[in-house]
């Protein structure tokens, strides 16, 4: 990553223009050509610095359901349980954390009723209790990172 990559990341976490030549429009203030900007984004994706180039959706406004779930997984079953949980396409991410509740994952489903089904299936499959903690209120969603 060089200074140009950093400038791209810092200026394009949102605000990508919606017009007929958006790469040209976004490239100009960065002092890049349309082709250069597309090539840079392609490489940042290939290198894994970017997970995606596109929209960040508001899941609930798309009609879906979303919940943060936690489980207390015995250490010797951790990998086995992680594999079971991650196999669900509805599991969007999963992190191990330092706590008695040591596995934290997000279930995102398009059909709202599917969320509780996935929860029940995870509990049945793993034999472990799932703590379901859907948001009550969204107070801030920033998730912007300076490169």
């Amino acid at each position, binding site marked *: 990553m060089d200074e140009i990559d950093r400038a791209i990341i810092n200026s394009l976490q949102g605000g990508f223009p919606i017009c007929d030549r958006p790469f040209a429009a976004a490239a100009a203030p960065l002092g890049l050509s349309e082709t250069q900007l597309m090539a840079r984004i392609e490489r940042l994706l290939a290198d894994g*610095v970017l997970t995606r180039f596109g929209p960040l959706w508001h899941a609930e406004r798309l009609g879906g359901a979303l919940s943060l779930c936690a489980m207390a997984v015995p250490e010797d079953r951790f990998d086995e349980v992680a594999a079971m949980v991650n196999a669900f396409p509805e599991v969007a*991410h999963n992190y191990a954390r330092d706590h008695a509740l040591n596995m934290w994952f997000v279930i995102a489903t398009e059909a709202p009723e599917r969320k509780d089904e996935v929860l029940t299936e995870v509990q049945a499959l793993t034999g472990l209790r799932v703590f379901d903690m859907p948001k009550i209120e969204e107070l801030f969603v920033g998730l912007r990172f300076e490169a």
Partner: protein
Amino acid sequence: MDLSDRDYALVTALCGGLPLTPRPFLALAHAVGMEEDDVIARLHSLSTAGIIRRLGVIVRHRELGYRANAMVVWDIPDHAVEDVGQRLGSCPEVTLCYRRPRRLPDWPYNLFTMVHGRDRTEVTGMIAAMAEREGLRNHRRETLFSTRRFKQCGAHYGQRQAAE
């Protein structure tokens, strides 16, 4: 805002991201059988309605050097949680802030914030400074650092059609 079948078709077509071509909305239009102008107009509407939170690069924070990822959870009295949440949500250290249900007796925390930083020492310092500044030093809190990331992919949306 009610979503049409065409909107869901656009959502599906955008699942893999925006095509890296000079006219990405034309490519999308071809994929879903719409005109480029209509795609642009629909995406403006979805953006204005907040259904698209934002459009652009979505980073993998670890790869940018944010190696410490802390979920800081707070036990805040219910009558104060909204106010405290607003304040924590506007702190520069906080990247996400949600109110969630307690799960007593196992889990007494009702306010969840994410704090990212270069390393655990830096993040621990940021959290302590924030708690001090916001007058929350005496509220019970825990910091859960992530130790492994198993999965981080965007959720998959758009396979479903709008209700008939």
